[in-house]
């Protein structure tokens, strides 16, 4: 490539980046709250595991609540993903015409990994449930018809 061609390519790239920077943008965001939730199924035995054993195995729960005559412990991790695509004119027209030529689309998905443990009045595990929301893929889950 000769010198003028190089200069032309370079300035084309610079000009394109100036214009495109206001024209198309893509944003990827992630927010995670809480540590990964462990589910040692074989060590949490309904009718046997005590509250003390569960606490020494899993640590402090993220939530505690009264559930009827039982106590509920919840271990939870929330995972948010958001992708956003924005297309618009880089030239501000708002002072000339009262319209916007921007268009944007975004999708946000929050998934939860949750382990819920119910303890009876003797503080023995009466039932348990585990849901791993993070195992569901982002796009497939976002666009599925399931609520």
């Amino acid at each position, binding site marked *: 490539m000769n010198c003028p061609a*190089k200069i032309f390519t370079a300035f084309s790239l610079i000009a394109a980046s100036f214009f495109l920077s206001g024209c198309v943008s893509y944003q990827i965001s992630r927010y995670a709250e809480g540590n990964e939730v462990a589910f040692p199924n074989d060590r949490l035995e309904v009718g046997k595991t005590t509250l003390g054993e569960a606490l020494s195995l899993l640590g402090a729960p993220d939530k505690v609540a009264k559930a009827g005559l039982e106590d509920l412990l919840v271990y939870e991790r929330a995972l948010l993903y958001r992708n956003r695509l924005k297309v618009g004119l880089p030239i501000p027209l708002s002072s000339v015409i009262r319209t916007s030529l921007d268009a944007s689309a975004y999708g946000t998905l929050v998934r939860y990994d949750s382990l819920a443990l119910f303890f009876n009045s003797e503080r023995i595990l009466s039932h348990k449930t585990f849901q791993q929301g993070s195992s569901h893929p982002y796009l497939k889950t976002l666009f599925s018809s399931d609520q």
Partner: protein
Amino acid sequence: MRLTSKILAVLIITTLLPGCIALGKNKEFQPFDSTKLDKLVPGKTKAAEVTEIFGAPSEVVELANGNAYIYKRTVTKGTVCWLVLLTLGNAEKQHDQLVFFFDLHDTLTHYGLSLDADKAKYELPR
């Protein structure tokens, strides 16, 4: 010739990568000292003694068989990186949490401790 190429290279880099990066940290502080857990004896220690040692709890929850006192502190670390066409953002919130369980007579029965606040990281979305 070489100088022109270098100037062009600098121009291209400074134009195509005019991004910047921002790091942020939020802390919800509660000064509980988990090393003082040795002072507690389940079955003997009363709720009043727990609050004397650890201070006021962040939350008190009424349970079917007593109460739970929750001590919580959180650390959130955020990272944002702006490039020409692409913006990447990540935030992670982690907790240190201490939960005491009391029976109906306000006697400590169990406690659980999780220290995860240090696990919050500055990183880009995965």
